[in-house]
């Protein structure tokens, strides 16, 4: 963590395929936001968006890093992964669309609701992706 008077920065690594650790970063981020006394409604929406994005790295990519910046105006969560990328982002955003493996579906993932959940809960969502390289999601939550 780095800290100056205006912003705080945190980073977390996410391992593709490691479901036992899925949600760890989101849980740490939730703790930090609670300590900072962020509005409970904003924390709840941030947690949903962050968890879904974190699990997507675990379920669909090889590895990733989560960069969190908290300023006086907003929280920005950037998830940068190395993985297969998303060939058609509009299609991936549709509720019910999923390429999750049968093993992952058996665990209860793969409903194709993660990206729609992120969209619903984030104040701002930007996705960029390159096939066979990786995906970057930027989730922004505004305090006002």
């Amino acid at each position: 963590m780095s800290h100056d008077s205006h912003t705080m920065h945190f980073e977390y690594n996410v391992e593709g395929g490691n479901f036992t650790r899925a949600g760890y970063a989101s849980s740490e981020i939730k703790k930090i936001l609670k300590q900072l006394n962020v509005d409970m409604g904003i924390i709840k929406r941030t947690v949903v968006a962050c968890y879904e994005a974190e699990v997507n790295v675990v379920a669909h990519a090889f590895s990733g890093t989560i960069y969190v910046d908290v300023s006086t105006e907003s929280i920005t969560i950037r998830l940068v992964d190395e993985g297969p990328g998303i060939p058609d982002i509009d299609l991936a955003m549709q509720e019910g669309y999923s390429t999750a493996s049968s093993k992952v579906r058996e665990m209860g993932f793969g409903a194709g609701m993660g990206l729609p959940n992120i969209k619903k809960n984030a104040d701002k969502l930007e996705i960029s992706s390159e096939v066979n390289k990786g995906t970057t999601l930027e989730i922004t939550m505004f305090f006002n």
Partner: protein
Amino acid sequence: MRVAEIAEKLGLKVYSGMNGLNREVTGGYVSDLLSDVMGNADAGEIWITLQTHKNVMAIASLKDLAAIILVSDNTPEQDTAIQSNGEEIPILGTSLATFEISGKLYELLK
């Protein structure tokens, strides 16, 4: 109603998270799809599911759920139970299937 009272009235087993038995329950949510629960469950609800792995606890904790009920004699995996103890979110169990236990919980909470 508290988790303990629900467990007693419905004859539920308590597998883990005993320290959370006094959590207040505001309602219930029934789903085996994790992102459905993530998107639609509310804090304070009891979650009825057949999923037993650790991600269930991650969700329960992130969503501040009151407890989990495992249906059809499913039991929590060991690391799931350990996290339940740590988070103090009880994991309960029943031999009933989802339909029956959901109906009973609904009757109790309505």
